[in-house]
């Protein structure tokens, strides 16, 4: 018999077996799918919260307010110093003349000539440091405070910063959870294949007795595992996509209400593919291990 034909026959057989217990197969798809969705959706939420928090944070993390009478020369000197500091990721300078209308606007006064009096703000630098280490930041602060022309240095202690570090930790937690869930999935799939073999134990025993090789016995169950993985992965990807679409829809409604741009960040195609691929990989590996353990018992 042609080797390929044999493989094809076995594949059809495995499909038929899956078909016979259609409910169980679909259930397995759902279980795998949901297990994959759990970390993916958390990942998505964290990514989106990050992007929201970045959107809000026009305010930099360190604000330097200059004295009212600081000369352009002193200002340039300060800028030069800031350029030399390696802890500083980026900075920008805001003239008081630019800052005042912005502040007014942010407080809800849409036109600048509405009776509010003279500009109370100083010139300022806004700095994004590239470190979160509080010691380094305090060093930086005291260094800047000593510069000529600097009135006050304010380190942002706002909730955005806090949210960011929580999100940072959340990302780590998600990674850990993913590993745990993957191993759980290995157990679940392995166990299902084991149960499937148990429920076909008469067939397996007989096959062995009349000369079937381990390979022959293993094949339909391996295909079965493959189908679980593929179906589960696709289920996860599809549900995830639906969730994103649903959320975006919701967001668009909210936008219509308040007029602003904001859209849910979707996973990219490669990430979707890696969900399906990972699912198949885990399922086939789990099946293989489980089959090899079970096959010895018959």
């Amino acid at each position, binding site marked *: *018999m042609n080797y390929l034909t044999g493989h094809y026959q076995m594949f059809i057989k495995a499909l038929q077996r899956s078909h016979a217990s259609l409910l169980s197969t679909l259930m397995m798809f759902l279980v795998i799918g949901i297990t994959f969705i759990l970390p993916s959706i958390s990942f998505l939420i964290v990514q989106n919260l990050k992007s929201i928090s970045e959107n809000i944070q026009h305010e930099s993390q360190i604000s330097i307010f200059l004295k009212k009478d600081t000369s352009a020369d002193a200002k340039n000197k300060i800028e030069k110093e800031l350029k030399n500091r390696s802890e500083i990721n980026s900075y920008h300078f805001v003239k008081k003349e630019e800052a005042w209308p912005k502040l007014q606007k942010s407080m809800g006064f849409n036109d600048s000539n509405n009776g509010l009096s003279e500009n109370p703000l100083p010139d300022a630098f806004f700095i994004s440091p590239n470190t979160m280490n509080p010691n380094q930041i305090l060093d930086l602060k005291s260094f800047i405070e000593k510069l000529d022309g600097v009135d006050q240095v304010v380190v942002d202690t706002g909730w955005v910063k806090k949210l960011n570090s929580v999100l940072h930790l959340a990302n780590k937690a998600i990674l850990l959870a993913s590993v745990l869930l993957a191993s759980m999935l290995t157990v679940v799939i392995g166990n299902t294949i084991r149960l499937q073999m148990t429920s076909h134990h*008469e*067939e397996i025993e*007989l096959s062995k*007795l*009349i*000369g079937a*090789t381990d390979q*022959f016995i293993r094949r339909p169950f391996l295909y079965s595992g493959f189908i679980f993985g593929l179906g589960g992965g696709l289920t996860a990807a599809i549900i995830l996509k639906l969730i994103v679409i649903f959320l975006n829809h919701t967001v668009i409604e909210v936008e219509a209400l308040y007029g602003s741009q904001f859209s849910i960040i979707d996973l990219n195609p490669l990430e979707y593919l890696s969900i399906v691929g990972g699912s198949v990989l885990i399922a086939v590996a789990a099946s293989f291990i489980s089959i090899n353990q079970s096959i010895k018992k018959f």
Partner: protein
Amino acid sequence: MIKFDQVHKRYPGNLGALQNITFEINAGELVFVTGPSGAGKSTLLKLITAIETATHGTIIFENQNLAQVKSTSIPYIRRKFGLVFQDHKLLYDRNCFENIALPLEINGVEINDIRGRVRAALDKVGLLNREKSMPISLSGGEQQRLAIARAIACRPSILLADEPTGNLDKKYADEIMNLFYSFQELGVTVIIATHEMPIVSKKHKQLYLQDGNLIRMTEQ
């Protein structure tokens, strides 16, 4: 072809299932293994087909010591046997056709040839019209015949049958026996375990077991 030399078989709970068994079966012979319930007949067949391994002694099959055969080669040895199990071992979730197709699939028979060979086997035991029936809907005797059909579907060079006529009335039992005899005439080695010796006009060998001992070996 098959050679037992001082073979002992002990099970965990039964230390003398077979004791000091020595005999030889040549290719093309017809052999009856007889003896009362629990004498060790089924165990003897299981040893020949490497389903169980001997505790002591050597079993030679086609010049191979079964104890030294690699486990990956065992399936290929088993394919030479056609087996009728005492408890039939039919698969109740497949119909008659599929039950008989299984050994053919295992032997790698071309899918196009399977249909014809399954039918031929069913025809030989008088079950051709039950092709699509599930085994559960067959009477006890019909199930036994189905098990026999499965054993002969692969045209084995050795046929081992454990109580193949236990559930059959005289007429069918005779027919099945004649089927076995015809196989022997085609050169197949036939080994039949039974608790009661049928009336046989053909030349045959008889191994009489009792309590695990080979009490008597006759040739007629």
